[in-house]
């Protein structure tokens, strides 16, 4: 890799041994992928995937102490993934004890570190940092040093920014150094589609199911998707962006997709058309049968598959303001049909703090509260990372949450039927 004299000096220890190791890490990372140079990070803010102070991850916080103690100048400010705890989310006394005493006993230490490292503020904790309300929305073409698979795939695909699927820790090192190795999704060649996915569904495919099917098929490759504009239109309005947020999260968690192109909709597909498809791209046809088979293959790991659900999470990744409003309307309508006042299953909708604040300014907040649904800034994935949740029947419309936890996946329509008591879980 060719480094500038300034970068070489850092590697040689001009700012101390710790900064040299930060740069060495980035150099080795780039060389593994054939990067020939570093490129400046151009976004205003970074984003870190690590938001949790897990006792078992103490080596990470020790590493951050090493960086902080070395007096390395702060890099760009950044947002962080959602916090793992929120007292508003239903939890038993035992769960609260496990969370605070055993699992997240490094939370206060880590949040203090994040303040020193440059987190944007108390409202900066969300996986959907790119929402307007949160304010970490990069520009098209910006080079990012982000981690959080759902945010990276959104920034690349929907915004047209440029970011590799960086890991936690590496992303912070890029923000500190101010440069990242140029390879993969930072290059024009790396952004070409190597799969063409043809949609032949009779109805609008469920975003998180479609994302799952495509992610499992193409893994880390870049898919170009034909036929989705039939349902989403050709403008990136709120509905299309919400769909793509959830779709992308499923491609990234069920596979390893960092960028997708939607014909006639996402910026690079619109500008470049089929020129963005690489030669010899592979093909994959998705129809209703493929989606149904994908769903049927999900294992149910509840001890008793027939037990009644105890909790429902919607919002992994975090919900947008329009999603909160739409779900409020849908829950109210569903409850009316089933003759109930409140949801049949304790239900949590998750969203970023700034979105929740905006939501609370609207009449929807009081209406949703009446239905019994709790709105929280929590990370449901972190909430479910405890052994007690293994025996807790949690349902979700999130394919990401399903992938990493024992939560059982249902389509959004089925979740609505279940939480409004129109249908019992099967």
């Amino acid at each position, binding site marked *: 890799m060719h480094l500038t004299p300034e970068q070489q000096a850092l590697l040689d220890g001009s700012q101390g041994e710790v900064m040299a190791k930060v740069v060495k890490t980035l150099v*080795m990372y780039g060389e593994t992928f054939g990067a020939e140079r570093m490129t400046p990070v151009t976004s205003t803010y970074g984003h870190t995937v690590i938001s949790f102070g897990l006792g078992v991850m103490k080596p990470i916080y020790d590493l951050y102490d090493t960086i902080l103690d070395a007096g390395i100048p702060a890099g760009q400010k950044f947002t962080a993934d959602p916090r793992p705890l929120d007292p508003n989310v239903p939890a038993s006394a035992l769960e609260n004890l496990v969370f605070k005493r055993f699992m997240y006993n490094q939370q206060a230490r880590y949040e203090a570190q994040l303040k020193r490292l440059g987190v944007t503020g108390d409202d900066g904790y969300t996986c959907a940092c790119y929402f307007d309300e949160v304010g970490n929305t990069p520009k098209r073409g910006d080079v990012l040093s982000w981690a959080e698979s759902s945010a990276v795939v959104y920034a690349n695909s929907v915004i047209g920014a440029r970011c590799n*699927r960086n890991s936690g*820790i590496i992303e912070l090192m890029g923000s500190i150094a101010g440069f990242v190795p140029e390879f993969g999704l930072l290059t024009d060649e790396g952004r070409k589609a190597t799969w063409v996915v043809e949609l032949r569904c009779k109805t609008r495919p469920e975003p998180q199911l479609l994302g799952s099917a495509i992610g499992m098929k193409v893994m880390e490759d870049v898919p170009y998707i034909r036929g989705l504009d039939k349902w989403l239109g050709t403008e990136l309005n709120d509905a299309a962006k919400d769909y793509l947020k959830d779709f992308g999260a499923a491609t990234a968690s069920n596979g*390893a997709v960092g960028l997708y192109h939607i014909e006639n909709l996402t910026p690079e597909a619109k500008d470049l058309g089929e020129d963005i498809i690489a030669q010899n791209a592979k093909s994959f046809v998705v129809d209703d049968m493929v989606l149904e088979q994908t769903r049927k293959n999900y294992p149910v790991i509840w001890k008793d598959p027939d037990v009644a659900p105890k909790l429902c999470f919607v919002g992994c990744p975090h919900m947008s303001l329009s999603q909160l409003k739409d779900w409020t309307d849908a829950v109210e309508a569903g409850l009316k049909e089933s003759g109930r006042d409140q949801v049949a299953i304790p239900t949590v909708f998750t969203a970023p703090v700034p979105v929740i604040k905006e939501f609370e300014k609207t009449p929807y907040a009081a209406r949703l509260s009446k239905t019994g649904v709790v709105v929280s800034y929590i990370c449901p994935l972190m909430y479910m*990372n405890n052994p007690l949740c293994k025996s807790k029947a949690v349902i979700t419309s999130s394919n990401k949450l399903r992938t990493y936890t024992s939560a059982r996946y249902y389509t959004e329509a089925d979740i609505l039927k279940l939480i409004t008591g129109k249908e019992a879980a099967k």
Partner: protein
Amino acid sequence: MRTFHGRVVVPGTCTAEALVSRGGFNTLASYQMALMFGDKKVKCGDQNNPDIYKKPMIGKALCLPMTIGSTTGGMVLYAACSLHKQPACMLFSKHIDSLAASGAILGDVWTDQNMPVIDQLGDEFLEYVQTGMKVTVAADGAVTVE
């Protein structure tokens, strides 16, 4: 017995028993419960990976096409290395992915643990190697399976 040649990502040598994931290895899903609750055998917790679900991973020669899933993946591997709970080595049939590379490099630069990592061993490697076989990694990236 067969020998395959790959590219050295993290140098080192070792001999260990193979643990084979034919599909993408989801690092977070595989490690999170084992690390969180101090499972000494570090049994794989990924329900979606029938090849290795519930099988011990510590000290094994982890053979895989690539890793998939959450971008916490590299951080999780780094934590596994720091806690001395990493596999003996990681052997990729394909080009290593960015998350696994991050974890392997973080482990190499920031810890005193050695976990050799070889990639680009080819599809034939993953077709040939079976869980339980003996795997020897040489310093030049040669991997012998017997």
